[in-house]
């Protein structure tokens, strides 16, 4: 399942990655931090 917003497609893997990131964080994350996390995921 993908969703397109302004030519951006976030896959279920992307969302799963973000959810895990949010679960493991002890403080709230901003949208910009999530954007940066998607751009430079660990291991990439």
């Amino acid at each position, binding site marked *: 399942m993908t969703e397109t917003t302004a030519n*951006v497609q976030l896959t279920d893997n992307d969302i799963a990655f973000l959810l895990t990131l949010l*679960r493991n964080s002890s403080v*709230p994350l901003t949208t*910009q931090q*999530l*954007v940066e996390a*998607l*751009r430079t995921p660990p291991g*990439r």
Partner: protein
Amino acid sequence: MVAEQETQLTFAGTKKDKQVAEQAMQLMRGQGRFMATNAPIRVSLTSLAKYFTDQAEASAAAVEKAIVANPEIFAIEERDGERLVVTTIRGHIPIEQHESTVHTFSARLMTPLPKPERPAVAPRERPLVAPSWTTFTEPADLYETLIEEEEALAEPAAVVESPAELVEEPISVEAPEVVPTILEQPEEAPAAELVAEEPAVEAEAATAPELATDVDALVEPEVALSDQDERQLITLDAEDEVVAPEAEVTQVEEPVVTPVPNVVAAPRPAPVLVLSDVSDVADADLAAAIDARLREDTRVAHFGDHWLSEDRVPRLSRGDLRRIKDYIDEQEQPLTDTTLAQDILGVRPNAPDFDLARFAVNVRLSREHREFDFVGTNGQRFWSTSALPQLGTTRRRPNDIGTDFRFLLEESDPSLEPHSVRSVDRVLTFYEYTLGLLPLDADMRRLLPKALLPDQRSAVLTFECPQSYTTYLVEVRYPTPNRGGFLLGLDDFFSENLVPGALISITATENDGHYRLEYLAGENQSARLLELDDRRAVRYVFRPTSYACTVASEMLISEERFPSLGSEKPLDDRLRRRPEAVVQATFERIGIDTDEGKLAAFDDLYAAANIERPYSRELLRTTLESDTHITTADDGETYTYAAGA
């Protein structure tokens, strides 16, 4: 007064002894009249005998005999060679008292006891929590939680990489001959770094440098690797002997993976999570995509542009919510999440979980729609309750003010960017001054932030006025489909410091909820200026006014300029709602009679029309030009209103 009743004593001895002893007792009681009842009264035997001898009542020997005859009442002490008779008021020999020095305050003060050791307490049982929920792990660990999905997709391939010569080749793990070699030299590759998909295979590869020798013959080194394959590389350290010259290279036709029980256990490989390539996507688009997906996800809590897993957000009890509501009502003003987290939840600002507590306040209160209203900005998150009184003037209802500013909806530019300018300068109109407000026009919308929440109707800002050392709470009423936006709450500042026509400047700060409000100061001046007198019959009056601010003369409503405005009554509300009716009434008030009708300059019309209701220059110009009774002969400098035309 307390009277001590003397004890009746019984004396021993002969009758004469009794008399002498009783009299001696009275004498000694007289001597110790003010002494404590048990304090020793000492009288020398010589002086006692002298008394009796002088009184011719008894001899010294008789006195001593009588004293000795009553040992329970009298005692004889010798001090410095003199014999003293000792007794007490109570009539018994003094009892020697020993002051206990076992426990004294000074001793305890100077020699404190050692700190008692705490008894051993059994460790309190804590609920078992998965480590992933209590500790922050490096993002690399994210892959471990998603391994199952990826393992199915992964290719059972591995490549041995030597430090001297990189060999990126898929490992042929099918060779059964490899297994014995691994078992013989498990310690030769202690620092092997494994990033492969198949654990058993990696273990074999890591512990079997000879495997690479086999692979050399099997796989071409020029194999091009994909991104995913690159993550499946096996890297060996420099000391690993990748190539064993004596090893035999054999290709096995039938792949069989033999279990190797003695192989050194390799760590579970990190799963590979294939994420979208977003390198070409703009931040705003990616943020919008994230927002669209996560906003509807019930596993995620969000407020504004902050996100966290729902399970990580502390919950507030009903008692917490009630105390927050009571506290806001008690303070009679909206309070920020910072204040609530500190004062109600008791979290200190320097505590590591303070940001989390603030987030919890915001998330939990945002779900209590009936009790709480969010009236903050991103930088200053105010919360209000329905019981709080409105900020600002009570002269006019906010809904009516919004209706007055309805023209701003037509003048608004949809492309303007909120919070994009640093400061805005304005000239106060009479309407704004009287009600203590400012319009949320295009300039102000460029200065102020937009509503943080989609359904947010208002926001409370703080306006700091350094010239008067005061800070005001200002409420921004955002536009609705049929009402314009405006800012309320400056009536005190205006009335104490300014007059209509004053020049003010509003400057943004780093905090999008906090602004600096200044006015252009000037010399002290006095003039008769227009005021709205609503104490009895509501009407406009001119009163002598002193002010120390610079004013735009074209907006000053003085008696010299508009003498006919004095004692005018405000227009009826039904009339006020129609801009053209107010303009016509303004012509009647300030116009100069001519043959064609009432003549007035545009600047005068603008200043005077803004007494009754807000006008922008565009609105006034449009109103003048659309009215068939109004004409201009000089391209808009002056207008003439022909009432009967």
